[in-house]
């Protein structure tokens, strides 16, 4: 069969289609004009034009977190490329599949400090899973195929492909490799049988087992296997920030999130368990607190596809390298067929103890009639959306309250920058999520600081008719930093006051962009504002003027053991408990 000769730009588009890409987030510029020109008439690929390259990357990230498929970004060279770095690093830390296409100056000019030249391959080397500089148009199709393969498989991550202008202008036959095999890259999917058996046996012996699930469960799509494991063992489950929704929050075995702002119950369970089963979790410092007093009585079993995650931060007694879904399937098989215990009877005492912790110290806050408590806003968002929204967050207090007071029943409904902690992530991620799930209710739970870091993307939302809702928990401060200053810096609020009740006026900002702005200053206005925002089929900013003094509790001070939690401040008014929506 005769092959068509295509230009580099056409090859890129064809390759994206072969990889089943339908949406590209991008921003044009000099060296990528040829590619944008091809995109202009394309019927299958939709380009979402953003207002900043960082916004484009976070949108692709949000798209990827909702669909599980790589998000795709196309930007120009130099500043276009360097603007993607924060977004790429965010995706890399959270293992999000993504392919970033950057323009580059013509190959003859590379290294000459040409106009809008940046060594983006060098710059992104430590924050991509892999990256390429394509020097020959013949390499283009196989490189893009490889890029998607690497982004998707193993521990997923962002891959960058740098495209010199002359390479995208040159033409050659389109030769699409149907299969990719990289001998130096063959991620191990199935776990070693003997290690799986050993892990299952250890779990079977445990009197106080605890499952600690992380983002790997989401990446692997192992929700059913995790639920089955917990059910077989009748063992409690705690999920890290990255895994909210990977185990249903309403399940009686669920303890909430552990770590610095985790629940009392989850942290106490870790510290008292005799077996901790880490599933797709990398034991990050925000989860472990002080590592040498972490889970002191527990034998630790860790299952992860990335061998470098094992024994990196904490001691591990039984490691299993493999894809979570495969390993858990095998392990459940062993537990069911070979190790028939009466789990229910064994764990009654342990579960009773856990119930006591849960009941003695639930997540609470002090409701107030006069001033809006940010937790109240999140609680109402949960109730009014019936738990069905896709929630994105910024970083700081808003993120923690969104994790604590919204309850996640299903995976891929919680989008938050867990590893890098990127302020400005949530709003563009919400736009990407809305592209991926046009009919879903998408809400960015934001702070007044974070929202200002990518507020320009409001134009993208309005123009593309993406009705995302932004709930700004406006406390005029960089709240989490202010909280640390209050607790650890003698209430010296150095440079954390933003004055954002007035500057900017978020309602007017929304209106200026053609979106809707709503404001609540009293608790009684919260519910009507949320209901109105959800009713409108437009992007809405909800400006909730909140209590600036409110802090996130529980809190484990940095460097302390996770059972050394600061709990709620002395109660002044009637405490409200978090209620699950029926």
């Amino acid at each position, binding site marked *: 069969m005769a092959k068509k000769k295509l230009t580099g730009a056409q090859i890129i588009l064809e390759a994206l289609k072969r990889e089943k890409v339908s949406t590209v987030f991008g921003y044009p510029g000099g060296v990528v004009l040829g590619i944008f020109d091809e995109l202009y008439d394309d019927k299958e690929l939709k380009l979402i034009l953003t207002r900043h390259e960082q916004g484009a990357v976070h949108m692709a990230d949000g798209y990827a977190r909702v669909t599980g498929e790589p998000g795709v970004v196309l930007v120009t060279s130099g500043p276009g490329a360097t603007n993607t770095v924060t977004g790429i690093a965010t995706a890399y830390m959270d293992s999000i599949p993504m392919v970033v296409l950057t323009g580059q100056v013509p190959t003859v000019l590379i290294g000459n400090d040409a106009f809008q030249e940046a060594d983006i391959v060098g710059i992104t*080397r430590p924050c991509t899973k892999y990256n390429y500089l394509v020097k020959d148009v013949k390499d283009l199709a196989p490189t893009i195929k490889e890029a998607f393969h690497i982004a998707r498989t193993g521990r997923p991550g962002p891959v960058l492909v740098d495209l010199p202008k002359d390479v995208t202008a040159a033409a050659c036959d389109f030769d699409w490799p149907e299969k990719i095999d*990289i001998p130096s890259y063959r991620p191990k999917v199935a776990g070693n049988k003997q290690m799986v058996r050993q892990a299952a046996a250890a779990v079977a012996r445990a009197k106080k087992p605890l499952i600690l699930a992380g983002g790997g469960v989401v990446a692997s799509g192992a929700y059913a296997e995790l639920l089955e494991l917990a059910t077989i063992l009748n063992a409690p489950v705690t999920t890290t920030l990255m895994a909210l929704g990977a185990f249903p929050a309403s399940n009686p075995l669920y303890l909430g999130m552990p770590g610095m702002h985790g629940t009392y119950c989850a942290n106490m369970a870790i510290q008292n368990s005799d077996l901790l089963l880490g599933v797709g979790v990398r034991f990050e410092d925000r989860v472990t607190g002080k590592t040498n007093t972490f889970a002191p009585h527990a034998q630790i079993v860790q299952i992860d596809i*990335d*061998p470098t995650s094992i024994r*990196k931060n904490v001691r591990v007694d039984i490691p299993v390298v493999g894809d979570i879904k495969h390993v858990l399937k095998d392990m459940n098989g062993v537990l069911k067929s070979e190790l028939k215990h009466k789990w229910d009877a064994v764990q009654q005492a342990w579960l009773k103890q856990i119930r006591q912790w849960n009941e003695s110290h639930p997540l609470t806050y002090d409701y107030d009639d006069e001033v809006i408590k940010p937790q109240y806003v999140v609680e109402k968002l949960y109730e009014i959306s019936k738990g069905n929204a896709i929630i994105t967050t910024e970083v700081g207090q808003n993120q923690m309250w969104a994790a604590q007071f919204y309850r996640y029943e299903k995976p891929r409904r919680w989008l938050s920058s867990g590893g890098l902690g990127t302020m400005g992530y949530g709003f563009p991620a919400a736009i990407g999520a809305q592209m991926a799930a046009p009919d879903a209710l998408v809400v960015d739970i934001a702070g007044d600081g974070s929202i200002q870091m990518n507020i320009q993307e409001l134009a993208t939302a309005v123009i593309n008719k993406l009705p995302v809702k932004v709930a700004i928990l406006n406390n005029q401060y960089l709240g989490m930093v202010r909280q640390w200053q209050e607790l650890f810096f003698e209430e010296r609020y150095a440079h954390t006051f933003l004055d954002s009740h007035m500057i900017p006026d978020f309602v007017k900002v929304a209106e200026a962009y053609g979106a809707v702005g709503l404001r609540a200053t009293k608790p009684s206005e919260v519910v009507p504002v949320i209901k109105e925002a959800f009713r409108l089929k437009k992007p809405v900013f909800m400006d909730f003027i909140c209590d600036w003094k409110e802090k996130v509790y529980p809190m484990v001070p940095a460097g302390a053991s996770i059972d050394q939690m600061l709990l709620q401040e002395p109660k002044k008014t009637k405490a409200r408990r978090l209620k699950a929506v029926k």
Partner: protein
Amino acid sequence: MRHTISVLVNNKFGVLSNVSGLFSGRGFNIESISVGMTLDSSVSQMTIVTRGDDQIIEQITKQLNKLIDVIKVVDLVEVDHIEREMVLIKVAPKQEHKAEVLRLTEIFRGRVVDSSQKTYTIEVTGDEKKIEALINLLKPIGIKEFVRTGKVAMAREGTAP
């Protein structure tokens, strides 16, 4: 403890940078690194000498394995192996010490590869201890400069994992 790690990599541009970036990004130190092509010109062999406790070395070997372009990683501490290094030493001895320099060169089975009125340049190959012994003996006589290649290493036949 000191480890000699042998790494087989794809011979592509950027690979050395990926490997060295892995060390610098995690605060691990490279004492020496040598790179060269293998029988298969698409594959290069690196020999890296580094230092760290068991946990750090475990991380280093795992992180190296994780790099897409790394084909194989062997920590040679675990196997019987041969190590060699070459050094070029430029010595500027006083007239009365010239014979001593030549004698030491012979004892260490080195060669004089360049000489001028005031200097000899000596080439010596051997393991690290031998090279250090020679340098220590020549120091009082007057070394102008020396250049070491860094270690290359290979597992002995029959012991490779």
